[in-house]
């Protein structure tokens, strides 16, 4: 494949990390080619070595890591053998990198212009007017009002803007290859679609190659020409996009697809999961690294290391199934666990009795300034919202970050006392309840958080974590009943009773999330607020947690308020959905109705921005102008009017009251009579 137009050739790259347990082979014999102007996607779950591969290419490894073997040929020149001072010229000028976290990659004490000009001068790319050049770069990456933004500091920019500035810096010296390591993972879907579009456009304009690292198959499907799947430090499949998405070859790739919610097969089906976890890389491998988790493992897999095998269509797979003489690989078998997860709860029955009814909920955070902490304004995080959840059902609350979703959850739980409105749980208003009385109601509503690493006190054993709620709410009459109960609940979430003596840091992300669920279940709640419980998890683990939540719901009759920004998860799990924008609900209704026929212009834009696997379902992206306004002084009238493509004069003045459409959707928009 080393044709003339091959820009980057990676040959048998091996990167090891020194750790107390021995040398970890985080990148092991990785080889691939990237042609000029092409987008090459590297996918895989976290920890499989994607980022280290990228850092190795630029020789930006952390101190503990070193490149052990291999070649990285850029235009035929091995960058691994260059002295550091030459490498510094290659970085930026010929290969540039953009990182995941836009917030931490910019220097907080320098203005945008300072940082851009610095890069320009380093590569001798600055012409007579560096400021003008910097502005031109900002305009290229689609930053409106570039002249003003030049003199701002990173903290004055939103996440999407920062990522654009990072891209502008990476592009300053017109590199031939841009490495983007999860460039949109920290961003909202609407911003993500803008950044992806920007990357696509820049690539076309400049004929630049793009190495896109991501865990999101939908993003790959929209962006890439070539796909490489990494697992445990190795590339297990290399294929052109079309072939990869129509017929993934490696068992791991196949399972990844099956674990995705919203694959179109409908919601009754439980998601396929991949049992176990990525093996420790400090050991020498005698067989296939995926063997422990593979559903098609054979004897040979455990004793012989599979090589990359060419299977035609420019596709190569590291799997014994494709070895010459083997029976050709069949389609993945249907999931054996299919029968064990029950179908949806009966819909009609419980519909009408609301378990929780939120009316006009308002949470405002005062902004204090000056010596005497005078209140100078309010952040209107949640502004007059209405919600309704019946038992046995799931209400999804979707919206971009910063729109107030989590605050709604905290307001319902009375972790934040609302400034107005009522939170009726089984007819009783929690918001008006004194603290002492509230404590007795606490056991009915519980919460699960997004980050399983932050939601468990690292200094407490699992047993104590779970017992905390049981003790505080006096769930069991006697102390002796506490431990049997903990064991039973751990079993319910699929953990061993013996694990209760361990500390959280000994568990993987998915297991921790199970512990967090067990902690909530320990007090027999009726409603659980799930605040993005799967966003920090990999797809295969996400599938396990979603299955578990669904199973618990049908078994225990739980109601969920499911806060998320992942539309595919909503489609899979929820019965009803409410869309939030800037502290207000703009549309709510049944999932089929809202996702199938969004009525509000914001919902329409949001849904169109969601990347999808299926090219047929891809619609024209509705681009929103501008950024999410600040909730300190939201726009008058309809909050959405500055960005709404259909805004009229009336929208600027009058806040649209709720309107009910014929099929039961409730919309706040003047377009509907």
């Amino acid at each position: 494949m080393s044709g003339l137009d091959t820009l980057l050739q990676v040959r048998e790259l091996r990167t090891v990390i020194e750790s107390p347990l021995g040398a970890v082979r985080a990148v092991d014999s990785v080889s691939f080619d990237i042609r000029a102007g092409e987008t090459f996607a590297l996918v895989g779950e976290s920890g499989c070595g994607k980022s280290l591969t990228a850092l190795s290419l630029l020789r930006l490894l952390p101190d503990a890591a070193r490149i052990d073997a291999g070649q990285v040929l850029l235009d035929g020149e091995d960058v691994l053998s260059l002295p550091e001072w030459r490498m510094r010229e290659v970085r930026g000028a010929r290969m540039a990198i953009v990182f995941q976290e836009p917030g931490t990659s910019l220097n907080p004490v320098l203005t945008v212009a300072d940082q851009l000009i610095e890069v320009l001068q380093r590569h001798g790319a600055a012409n007579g007017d560096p400021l003008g050049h910097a502005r031109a770069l900002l305009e290229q990456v689609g930053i409106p009002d570039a002249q003003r933004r030049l003199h701002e500091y990173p903290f004055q920019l939103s996440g999407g803007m920062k990522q654009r500035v990072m891209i502008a810096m990476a592009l300053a010296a017109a590199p031939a290859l841009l490495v983007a390591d999860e460039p949109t993972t920290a961003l909202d879907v609407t911003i993500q679609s803008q950044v992806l579009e920007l990357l696509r456009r820049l690539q076309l304009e400049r004929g630049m190659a793009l190495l896109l690292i991501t865990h999101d198959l939908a993003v790959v499907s929209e962006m890439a020409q070539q796909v490489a799947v990494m697992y445990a430090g190795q590339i297990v499949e290399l294929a052109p996009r079309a072939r990869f998405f129509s017929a993934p070859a490696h068992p791991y790739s196949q399972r990844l697809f099956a674990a995705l919610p919203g694959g179109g097969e409908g919601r009754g089906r439980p998601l396929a999961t991949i049992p176990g976890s990525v093996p420790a890389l400090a050991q020498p491998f005698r067989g296939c690294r995926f063997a422990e988790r593979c559903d098609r493992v054979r004897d040979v897999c455990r004793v012989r290391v599979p090589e990359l095998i060419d299977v035609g269509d420019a596709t190569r797979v590291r799997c014994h199934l494709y070895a010459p003489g083997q029976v050709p690989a069949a389609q993945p078998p249907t999931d054996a666990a299919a029968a064990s997860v029950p179908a949806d709860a009966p819909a009609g029955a419980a519909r009408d009795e609301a378990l929780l009814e939120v009316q006009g909920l308002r949470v405002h955070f005062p902004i204090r300034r000056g010596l005497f902490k005078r209140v100078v304004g309010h952040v209107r995080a949640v502004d007059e919202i209405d919600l309704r959840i019946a038992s046995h059902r799931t209400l999804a609350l979707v919206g971009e970050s910063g729109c107030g979703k989590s605050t709604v959850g905290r307001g319902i739980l009375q972790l934040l006392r609302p400034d107005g409105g009522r939170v009726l749980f089984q007819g009783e208003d929690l918001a008006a309840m004194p603290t002492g009385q509230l404590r007795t109601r606490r056991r009915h509503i519980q919460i699960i958080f997004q980050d399983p690493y932050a939601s468990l006190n690292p200094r407490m054993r699992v047993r104590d974590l779970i017992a905390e709620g049981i003790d505080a709410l006096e769930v069991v009459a006697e102390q002796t009943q506490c431990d049997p109960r903990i064991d039973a609940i751990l079993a319910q979430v699929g953990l061993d009773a013996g694990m209760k003596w361990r500390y959280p840091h000994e568990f993987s992300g998915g297991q921790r999330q199970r512990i967090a669920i067990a902690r909530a279940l320990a007090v027999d709640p009726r409603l659980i607020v799930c605040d993005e419980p799967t966003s920090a998890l990999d797809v295969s683990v996400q599938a396990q947690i979603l299955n578990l939540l669904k199973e618990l719901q049908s078994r225990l009759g739980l109601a969920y308020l499911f806060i998320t920004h992942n539309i595919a998860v909503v489609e899979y799990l929820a019965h009803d959905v409410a869309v939030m924008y800037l502290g207000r609900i703009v549309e709510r209704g049944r999932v089929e109705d809202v996702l199938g026929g969004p009525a509000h212009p914001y919902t329409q834009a949001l849904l169109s921005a969601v990347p999808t696997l299926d090219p047929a379902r891809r619609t024209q992206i509705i681009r929103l102008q501008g950024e999410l306004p600040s909730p300190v002084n939201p726009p008058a009238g309809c909050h959405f009017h500055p960005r709404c493509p259909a805004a009229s004069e009336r929208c600027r003045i009058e806040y649209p009251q709720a309107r009910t459409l014929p099929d039961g959707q409730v919309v706040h928009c003047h377009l509907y009579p």
Partner: protein
Amino acid sequence: MPFKPVILWTDALIFLLVAAIAALAWTVRRDEHLRAPWAKVARSRSGMCALVVLTAFVVTGLLDSLHYRPRLEGTGGAVNYGAEVRSAFDALADGLRTRTERTYSAPLATHAFSRESIERAHGTQAREYPRLRHGGAHLEDPHGERWPDVGRKTLAGAGLALALWTVLAMLLAALLAMRHREGIDGALSDLVHGCTEVPWRAMLLTAGALLAVAGPVWVLAGSYHVLGTDKVGQDILYQTLKSIRTGLVIGTLTTLVMLPFAVILGLMAGYFRGWIDDLVQYVYTTLSSIPGVLLIASAVLLTQVWMDNRPELFETVSERADVRLLFLCLILGITGWTGLCRLLRGEALKLREADYVQAARAFGVRDARILTRHLLPNVMHIVLIAAVMDFSGLVLAEAVLSYIGVGVDPSMISFGTMINNARLELAREPMVWWSLAAAFLFMFVLVLAANLFSDAVRDAFDPRMRSSWALPAALRPAQRLRAGSA
């Protein structure tokens, strides 16, 4: 009984502290979660070498904290005890304490530092350097014999040190062999090649270096003043060794006084916010905007006046000096808690929003419990780091305060009082340099060791360093990218 034990206030607190540390070590040993960072400290080479040096200082200080009053001889039936409080260290170094000269003498000198008028046998007067009463008194011809004698004694001391060191090394090897259930030669070879997890070899070498200094000094001190004598003829080596206890007391007890204020107020301010926060912030802003030295000086002078008016409270001079030392610790603690408090308040502000605290609140867990179970354990590393980092600062602060006369009691030997006395000596011609140099050297070694050890502790406990694995991989390379451009 040949003596009467005396427990001074600071002795009691010091031994309380030792007991607390022992208890803490016991719990840490049994809990692998707590043990992990300490194991990391134990792997740090500089940290453990510093610990060896610190141990030597601490042992001296502890010996110097076992106080008693000796029984007076020859008083017939009634048992009387001397007015002077001595310590176990004094008993060990009795020679150093009692062999005083008339006035200044240089290190290892045999003659006084200045000329004196001496009456000759035939009535004439001469001005010459008189022989010292003790320093080199055993020599017939000091001019010819002194240096060979010093050399011999140094060698003897070095031999002694070597013997001790070998015993130490063998003991250690035996211990390691027992622990790892292997032969003693295996353990020895591990030790020699430095392939043990805890850097035993480096620690052993440090101990060797200490012994190599201490051995010769020990032998020489029997017949010379190794570091000279001061104005009243007291041995400087004795003074510097006595200063160690004062420094340690100031460095540790002050922290002990300060911690409750800082921890309780800081956590409460951050967790409860509202008026509690306003109050705490008001107090520490006010406190920290008054110049510390002024506050300390006025407080010390007040206690001074108070103690002068109540001489009946103190049986001995030492008790009086000791109470003043304790007051100094209290005052330094009260003025010094604001920094840590501010730090803990910030941390508590962050932790109160942590998901696990929110989850506990969702269970209706009471505030006191959240504070003790969720907040306190998660800020302990900051407290620990602050305590070890503050130590050396406090040792230095004592020196400065005593120098300007608001530190410890003038009768109490400390680095500060030694330096204060040296003020005039430096102005003499020829200069008397050894007392200042000795105080400086000991203080420097103590502070350096403390700093190295606290660095190791901070590296092991600082969660930011520890989580560099979990940090977005982006952070570090991005910084390096920029660093490359600078």
